[in-house]
């Protein structure tokens, strides 16, 4: 199969994951053989299941089919508690070996990859052998358990087959749909990229059909599925030929082919039959019967194999001749031995005239005439390389593969718990750094003569600890581009299905995020992208009418700001009508009319994240798919992030997701509230102020402060934690200056009075167990240098 650049990226990930899965598998299998426990069956089942999943993701059908076949055996054992025979362990081990071989081969191919398109050959790997063994094991087992379970298990496989069929049909229809869209584009302009897309769809259909054939033995299915395989194969072939020969393509044939495939899909769905004459007629008009095409195909393949086998031996003869010339040792009779199959090969590929040359080489070797041997070997080599270029599929050069195979291991797999441990330890180091800072200060004070040395040392230590922390955290980081790339296709397909024109831009692909966060972002991003195309970007005519470019613009953007990473989805569509939202919110009874009028635009926009709201908002055929806006918010807030919406009517909408960069260490301000110390994360603080007492005003029991001409509400932090009513009068502030933290809430700014500002530093966040979390004002805790525990405050929650 041919792979595009983004597919190669996927493949790399698949390789990484698969090697991890496979490395643990052998041990699991041995345990399974020894204990045979349910857990061990389950463990092995899960590995094969995951392998199948990731292989399916990368379209590696040989792996999918072998893992699928052993998976069904394991499933049966798990569900019915059948006995585990040594043959099964053999089969499973061999399956694992097979997967390893395939992945190694892919790794070797990938290591030679230098950008552009990649050709990956996954034919003829011999997967049928394993599948057949799995099948016969399965059937054997079935025969042996003659009890009522027989019906039960056959029902099980039947169900399995049904599931496989419906998966196949889903995929088939999807591919046909995509193929049709591509065909429409091809009608406008015949371009090689589109042909390649089309070829890939046909290839996927063919692969799917083959997979289905390998796992299903329902005779009613085999016929039609074989036909589907044949038709898609022929279409793929024709397209490939058109690309290679750079000829104009008769699109009508392909359209007809797609129609035939569609009829089959319908027939399989409804259980009816297809008139076979139609297919024969289709291909007869093109001068090829589908049967004969298959024959030709087979002969071609055989021809190619012969050529490849011949080149392999010929190369070895030349290599050995060179080896002889170089070392001047060895038994020259070996040349004759290699020459024998080579001469047979020459006859088989239809070049008997070269037999003489081979004979001469052997002769030269035997008579120690190295000069002549070299000349003759070169002659053969020249002839070979000429032939090789002419041959459709040249044999793989052996040397280039061997050097590159090692290059694959650029990444090292690390156990996740080990990694977490390391990140934790680095966190502890940061804590230690904080307590040392205190010690340094004491020593400096007591022993001033050491001041400069100590200062230099402490600075170096801090620097080092900081770098170490950054490095440790980066270990868990993955560039966000990996996630963004997934949406290229989504955007394209979605835009087409909605008859819209959308181009996708990405910014900041190299921004790195914790892998777990990246996974968490995937669903929200999908939803936001869908929303933007579905509701944001207008149909081309409408855009034209408003003087916009017909093609809508969708931007996926990532960037760092402070302690946060931002991931944004921006469209230049129609924007959200805030006043309409206000009305809708009242209509839906979410807010009172009075309140709705009082709410700021930002507050109103936040309403779209409420569970009931978003579903009501969406009315097109795309609603009900994926997750709602509330999930976007929930997912992001679960990691301490925030979602905000910016919109301008007629200009577009941007949804911005703010994600804390590091969940482990935060910068914070240590403050005194009452008799306790607390930490306020620096990034939540807008300003730190000391306000003269007389700038504070009390109005109807609430406090306000006038800050540079703006009036903001003020609260006593102490009231939040002690339930005591605190009066301004009771408090004594040095010089009558009141320490106030100005905090930016989601929509408003407010001040929090604390008793004193102590110091700023890096603090290691330790989670607080759910039961112990008394208030959502507290987001975590940290251990101070002196060993005491201090709570970390989440002041943004104050407004609610």
């Amino acid at each position: 199969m041919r792979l595009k650049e983004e597919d190669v990226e996927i493949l790399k990930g698949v390789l990484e994951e698969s090697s991890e899965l496979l490395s643990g598998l052998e041990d699991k299998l041995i345990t399974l053989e020894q204990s045979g426990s349910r857990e061990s069956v389950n463990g092995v089942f899960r590995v094969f299941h995951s392998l199948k999943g990731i292989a399916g993701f990368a379209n590696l059908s040989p792996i999918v089919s072998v893992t699928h076949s052993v998976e069904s055996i394991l499933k049966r054992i798990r569900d019915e508690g059948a006995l585990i025979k040594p043959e099964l362990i053999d089969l499973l081990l061999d399956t694992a070996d097979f997967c390893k071989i395939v992945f190694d081969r892919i790794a070797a191919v990938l290591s030679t990859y230098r950008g552009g398109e990649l050709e990956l050959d996954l034919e003829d790997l011999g997967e049928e052998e394993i599948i057949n063994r799995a099948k016969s094991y399965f059937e054997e087992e079935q025969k042996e358990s003659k009890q009522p379970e027989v019906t039960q298990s056959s029902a099980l496989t039947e169900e399995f087959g049904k599931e496989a069929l419906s998966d196949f049909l889903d995929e088939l229809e999807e591919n046909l749909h995509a193929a049709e869209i591509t065909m429409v584009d091809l009608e406008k302009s015949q371009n090689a990229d589109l042909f390649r897309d089309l070829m890939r769809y046909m290839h996927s259909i063919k692969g799917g059909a083959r997979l289905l054939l390998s796992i299903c033995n329902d005779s009613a299915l085999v016929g039609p599925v074989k036909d589907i395989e044949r038709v898609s194969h022929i279409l793929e072939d024709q397209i490939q030929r058109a690309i290679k020969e750079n000829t104009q393509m008769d699109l009508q044939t392909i359209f007809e082919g797609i129609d035939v495939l569609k009829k089959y899909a319908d027939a399989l769905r409804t259980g009816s039959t297809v008139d076979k004459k139609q297919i024969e007629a289709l291909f007869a008009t093109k001068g090829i019967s589908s049967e004969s095409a298959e024959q030709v195909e087979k002969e071609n393949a055989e021809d190619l194999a012969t050529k490849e086998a011949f080149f392999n031996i010929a190369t070895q003869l030349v290599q050995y001749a060179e080896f002889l010339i170089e070392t001047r040792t060895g038994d020259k009779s070996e040349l004759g031995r290699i020459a024998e199959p080579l001469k047979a090969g020459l006859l088989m590929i239809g070049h008997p005239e070269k037999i003489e040359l081979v004979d001469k080489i052997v002769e030269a070797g035997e008579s120690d005439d190295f000069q002549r041997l070299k000349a003759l070997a070169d002659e053969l080599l020249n002839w070979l390389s000429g032939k090789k270029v002419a041959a459709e599929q040249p044999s793989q050069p052996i040397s280039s593969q061997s050097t590159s195979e090692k290059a694959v291991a650029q990444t090292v797999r690390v156990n996740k718990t080990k990694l977490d441990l390391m990140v934790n330890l680095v966190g502890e180091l940061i804590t230690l750094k904080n307590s040392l800072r205190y010690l340094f200060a004491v020593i400096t004070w007591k022993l001033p003569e050491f001041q400069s040395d100590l200062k230099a040392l402490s600075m170096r230590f801090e620097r080092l600890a900081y770098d170490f922390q950054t490095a440790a955290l980066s270990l868990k980081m993955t560039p966000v581009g990996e996630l963004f790339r997934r949406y290229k296709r989504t955007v394209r397909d979605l835009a087409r299905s909605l008859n819209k024109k959308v181009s996708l831009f990405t910014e900041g692909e190299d921004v790195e995020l914790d892998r777990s966060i990246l996974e968490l972002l995937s669903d929200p991003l999908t939803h936001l992208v869908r929303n933007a195309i579905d509701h944001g970007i207008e149909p081309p005519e409408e855009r034209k009418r408003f003087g916009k470019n017909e093609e809508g613009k969708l931007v996926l953007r990532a960037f760092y700001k402070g302690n946060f990473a931002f991931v944004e989805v921006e469209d230049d569509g129609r924007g959200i009508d805030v006043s309409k939202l206000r009305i809708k919110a009242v209509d839906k009874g979410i807010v009172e009319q009075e309140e709705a009028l009082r709410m700021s635009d930002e507050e109103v926009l936040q309403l779209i994240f409420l569970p009931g709201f978003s579903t009501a908002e969406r009315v097109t055929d795309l609603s009900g798919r994926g997750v709602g806006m509330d999930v976007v918010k929930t997912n992001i807030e679960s990691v301490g992030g925030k979602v905000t919406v910016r919109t301008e009517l007629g200009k577009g909408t941007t949804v911005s997701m703010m994600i804390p960069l590091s969940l482990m260490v935060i910068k914070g301000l240590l403050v005194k509230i009452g008799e306790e110390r607390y930490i306020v994360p620096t990034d939540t603080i807008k300003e730190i102020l000391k306000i003269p007492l007389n700038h504070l005003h009390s109005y109807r029991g609430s406090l306000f402060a006038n800050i540079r001409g703006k009036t903001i509400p003020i609260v006593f932090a102490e009231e939040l934690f002690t339930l005591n009513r605190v009066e301004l009068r009771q408090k004594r502030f040095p010089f009558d200056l009141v320490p106030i933290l100005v905090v930016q809430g989601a929509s408003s700014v407010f001040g929090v009075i604390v008793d004193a500002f102590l110091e700023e530093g890096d603090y290691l966040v330790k989670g607080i167990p759910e039961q112990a979390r008394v208030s959502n004002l507290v987001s975590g805790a940290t251990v101070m240098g002196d060993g005491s525990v201090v709570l970390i405050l989440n002041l943004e929650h104050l407004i609610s």
Partner: protein
Amino acid sequence: MARILIVDDSKMTRDFHAYVLRASRYEVVEAVDGADALEKLYRYPDIKCIVTDINMPNMDGLTMLRKIRSTPELAHIPVVVVTTIDRPEEQMEALKTGANFYLIKPVKPSILVASIRMVVRDGDGQ
């Protein structure tokens, strides 16, 4: 029907090669190492070709090859070595020791069959 001897300590590889060759209507005898192979060669004097691995316990492929080439009754039998790509020295060593040629693991079924056809000219199973 030509008989082929497959020598490999990995059951999977053996099964795989045997499957491929049987599918092309060759008859197959299997051996798990060099010593086993020599025994099978005496038991089946009509073996037309040997497809062997190099690295095997008990007796490795090269030792076996040396013994075959130095035994007059066996010396004529074509031997195809199946090796991995990361050992080019081994490949030359195999040719030097008496292999007719080598194939790179994993071998494509079609290539295996086509290669065997080049050394087993009579009695091709077709």
